């Protein structure tokens, strides 16, 4: 066996953008497959639509900016944005909303600020929030997980509904769709029901909603793999989840009948996806280690606050966008001391 000796420096090769992005894409696959398994082909159609339109818009803007198109498209960042967006939106969202979201995310949020590396906000989450604010009804109409569905929507029916708005015969939209577990929890709590009462609904699994918690688990696997591969640092996800669970535990201990237990928050909505894939976006997150801890924890706390007392059911997108705004300031105040400069600690 040959053991070649390389000349110094003996450091690893720095990660390249396309390599990092490819790792994110691979890490997203298990969770995405779980989504398809539980919520049907709509997720797949969303994924194709989002990736197609994101790449097309990116190419269009790069062309307008008179830059070489292929290298920018090859860095896969548009694909990652599209995938994150596609797994966040409901499976039955009309096709033009998907395209609109990607147009906003890629053109306005990413390229208008100068493209990858310059955008202060996470494009996928900005696109999601744009749609959530503009079309709240469509954006909260999720399909029930497969185990609970009265009617399994076939691929043909999904495509038909997304592109023409026709429903499978004998069904209304309300019969097919269902509120997300977070939404159910929140509306029932508003009706002054107790948690134990709400939990009698067949919608619930062991921790969060039936189906949802497993999607969360698969995303968690991808996320841990990314931490292991050093694609992302552990600081942001850990601090995010600690902030969320910490807040949830505090209020749950205070009154366990009006505040859901911590694991519910962990495995509902976009918490896991947000912690590992969205908050860790290297462009819009903090870069110092200390800053990442503050940034992640604040997002976790904000998620809990907005979920519990805010106006929208899930809060990951809002919390991430808010902290995107704060990230440069946090970085400024947490800069590590340069070796040989500044005050010595005695």
């Amino acid at each position, binding site marked *: 066996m040959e053991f070649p000796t390389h000349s110094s420096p003996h450091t690893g090769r720095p990660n390249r953008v396309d390599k990092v992005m490819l790792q994110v894409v691979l890490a997203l696959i298990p969770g995405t497959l779980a989504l398809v398994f539980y919520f049907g082909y709509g997720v797949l159609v969303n994924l194709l639509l989002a990736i197609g339109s994101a790449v097309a818009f990116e190419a269009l803007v790069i062309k307008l900016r008179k830059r070489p198109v292929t290298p920018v498209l090859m860095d896969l960042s548009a694909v990652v944005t599209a995938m994150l967006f596609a797994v966040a939106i409901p499976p039955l969202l009309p096709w033009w909303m998907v395209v609109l979201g990607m147009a906003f995310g890629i053109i*306005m949020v990413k390229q208008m600020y100068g493209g990858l590396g310059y955008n202060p906000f996470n494009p996928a989450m900005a696109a999601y929030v*744009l749609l959530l*604010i*503009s*079309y709240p009804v469509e954006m909260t109409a999720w399909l029930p997980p497969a185990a609970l569905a009265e009617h399994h929507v076939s691929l043909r029916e999904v495509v038909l509904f997304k592109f023409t708005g026709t429903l499978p015969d004998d069904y209304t939209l309300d019969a097919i769709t269902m509120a997300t577990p977070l939404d159910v929890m929140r509306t029932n709590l508003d009706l002054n029901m107790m948690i134990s009462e709400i939990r009698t609904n067949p919608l619930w699994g062991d921790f969060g909603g039936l189906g949802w918690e497993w999607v969360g688990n698969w995303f968690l696997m991808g996320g841990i793999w990314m931490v292991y591969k050093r694609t992302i640092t552990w600081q942001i996800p850990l601090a995010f989840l600690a902030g969320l669970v910490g807040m949830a535990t505090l209020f749950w201990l205070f009154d366990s009948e009006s505040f859901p237990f911590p694991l519910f928050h962990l495995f509902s909505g976009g918490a896991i996806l947000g912690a590992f894939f969205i908050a860790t976006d290297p462009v819009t997150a903090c870069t110092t280690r200390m800053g990442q801890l503050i940034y992640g924890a604040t997002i976790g706390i904000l998620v809990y606050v907005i979920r519990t007392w805010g106006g929208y059911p899930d809060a990951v997108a809002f919390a991430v966008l808010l902290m995107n705004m704060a990230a440069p300031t946090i970085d400024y105040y947490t800069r590590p001391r340069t070796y040989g400069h500044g005050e010595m600690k005695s």
Partner: protein
Amino acid sequence: MIGKPPHPGPGNRDSSMSDNSTRTLIMDGLWHNNQALVALLGLCPLLAVSNTAINGLGLGLATTAVLVASNSTVSLIRNFVRPEVRLPVFVMVIASFVTAIELGMNAYFHELHKILGIFIPLIVTNCTIIGRAEAFASKNNLWRSLVDGLSVGIGFTLVLIVLGGFRELIGQGTLFDQAHLMFGEAASGMTLKIEDFPGMLIAILPPGAFIGLGLLIMVKNLIDKRLAERRAASSSYVEEATGVTG
């Protein structure tokens, strides 16, 4: 009178009231130094009230009226106000006109007044008005101040209308919605509506104002750039031509 401030600048030479300088004033107010798109002044009412074109028009006209009146008055009293107290005096002048306009709108455009609400009294705090009083009217004669007030006000109004029209068109698929508030019942036919338009609620909400204003500034910069390129191209053409003949 002690300490009467000298008034430099072209404004004091009454004979210089040529067409050219008036045209420059108008072009500055409407385009080159547009208070909303270039100076970015008065953004609070601009962003808050521009959710429909008619609201924008109402607030824009009110602002223009105040601007013309305050600019003229400040210009007339500019030689009698000591510099130490000029700002309080200007603010008092502006506030009196705003009060008059507010009462007038309440009487004649009551519905519109109810919609615009707090933003009519808040015209007092519009930086554009005190800005023009301090930077222009206090140094220029009546005619120039009046022209400046009118062109700056109309420039501001146009931005309000365009932004308002853009926002209501994207947001709810209408144009000149509630036109009767401004022009009476006869004008309700002015309202255009796109049928079956789903609308993008965000355009009506505050973020839409920021995004819309950003896009307007982008369009203005783009037009300016194109104009500059064309001018450069034509002047170099002239130079070449003269070079050949010379």
